[in-house]
């Protein structure tokens, strides 16, 4: 596919390429992900710096090392409850607005049986409303099954820390070797929110701290580097 030529290209804001360009003879449908926009002349304009990514058949986006989370519908995120307003909790998910979480949006919650949630609790949920004009809304019920599906309040001896959005996506990507490799040596539970927040549960605090620092260190590592680093740790 000719689109592959663009894959991996490093772009900075302001770069322009046209759908009609020589190296971009795609079918007439193109989907643009984050970091790309168009102007009136149907040219594609880059608006974030990073690596251009292409995915067959027709999707393009820019991978960028961003810190600030921008809510997107359907994404699973980890947030911290900051306050309660009537039937709603305010949740800090690291975006510009705090997300709202209805207390009915927990599995098994009813008017009578409210979940036991207090400020500072960590919640794992899915964004069911994410729009630039209104505050995002979070839900701990999977809309497809109506079940919690793992979402809800997180508790236990875990640690919560923040990584860059890109690293979060990288860890979740099937191409990344870090978590599988790590998992073959140590046992731990990890929940990665797409907002760059990570909850990690380990047997001991020492292990947690080690794994956390290892994950943080892989931001700019390639798979080979990761393997090297892991080998150094374990052998």
């Amino acid at each position, binding site marked *: 596919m000719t689109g592959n030529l663009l894959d991996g290209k*490093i772009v*900075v804001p302001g770069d322009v390429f046209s759908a009609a360009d020589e190296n971009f003879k795609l079918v007439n449908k193109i989907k643009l992900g984050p970091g790309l926009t168009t102007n009136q002349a149907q040219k594609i304009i880059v*608006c*974030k*710096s990073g690596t251009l990514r292409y995915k067959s058949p027709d999707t393009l986006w820019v991978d960028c090392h961003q810190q600030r989370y921008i809510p997107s519908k359907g994404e699973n995120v980890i947030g911290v409850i900051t306050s309660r307003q009537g039937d709603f909790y305010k949740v800090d998910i690291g975006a510009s607005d705090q997300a709202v979480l209805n207390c009915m949006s927990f599995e098994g919650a009813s008017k009578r049986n409210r979940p036991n949630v207090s400020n500072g609790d960590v919640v794992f949920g899915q964004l069911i409303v994410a729009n630039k004009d209104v505050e995002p809304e979070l839900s701990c019920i999977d809309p497809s099954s109506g079940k919690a599906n793992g979402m809800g309040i997180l508790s236990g001896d875990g640690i919560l820390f923040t990584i860059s959005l890109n690293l979060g996506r*990288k860890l979740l990507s099937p191409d990344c070797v870090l978590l599988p490799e790590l998992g073959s040596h140590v046992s731990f539970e990890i929940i990665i929110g797409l907002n760059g927040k990570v909850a990690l549960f380990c047997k001991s605090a020492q292990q947690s701290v080690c794994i956390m620092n290892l994950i943080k260190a892989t931001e700019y590592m390639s798979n080979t580097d990761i393997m090297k680093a892991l080998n150094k740790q374990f052998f």
Partner: protein
Amino acid sequence: MDLNSSLPLGNLQCEQKVLKNTDGSAMYTAGETNVLVGVYGPADCKESKQDVKQAVVEVNFRPKIGIPGVAEKYMEKFVCKICESVILRSFHPRTAFSVIVQVMQDQGSLLSCAINAVSMALQDAGISMRCMPVAVTVALQKKEKEDNEMKDDSKKFVISPSTKDEEESVAIATFVFDSAQYDSISAYACGPMTSDEYRECLRLAKEASKHIVRFFRDSVSRKVSTDIR
């Protein structure tokens, strides 16, 4: 026209993600001038300042010695207008972008250094931009006496002048271009010059800005080169 073409911009250095708590930051060094910029955004914004159509940009310019005064306000406004025009503000209504510019060392060409630093910090924060602003300062100096024999009123152009160059010059101009088309976004020129001299300054600045954009691009590739493919 004199132009020390081998090293027109001095030493350029840029380090990104230098501050822990900001969304994006950059320490930018051009020659001996050094500026640190931190960016937050799109962040929450007080209701009184919100704009329902587009994001608000606020710039805070902090001098090294003393408290910010009118001169800093002028710089703030200048940088703020540039940010407003490059950031795709309509993507993030009701939010705010906060840019803090801390002067670490001023050895001339402060304004252009600050703008380039802001450009890198915005880029580091992954803020959606129409293009990257790139700034170049050019000073216009009277030729020294030896050169006088050629023409009386011919002038010497110095790109990225140092403090000393700035003191000796008759006029200083700072141009801001967009990184894609090299069209002008902002300009600041102070001191008497003819239209032709102005155009010449602009031409030189445009040439120099291409070097800087190349530098920007290099920095970005260095940063992201390790992304897994």
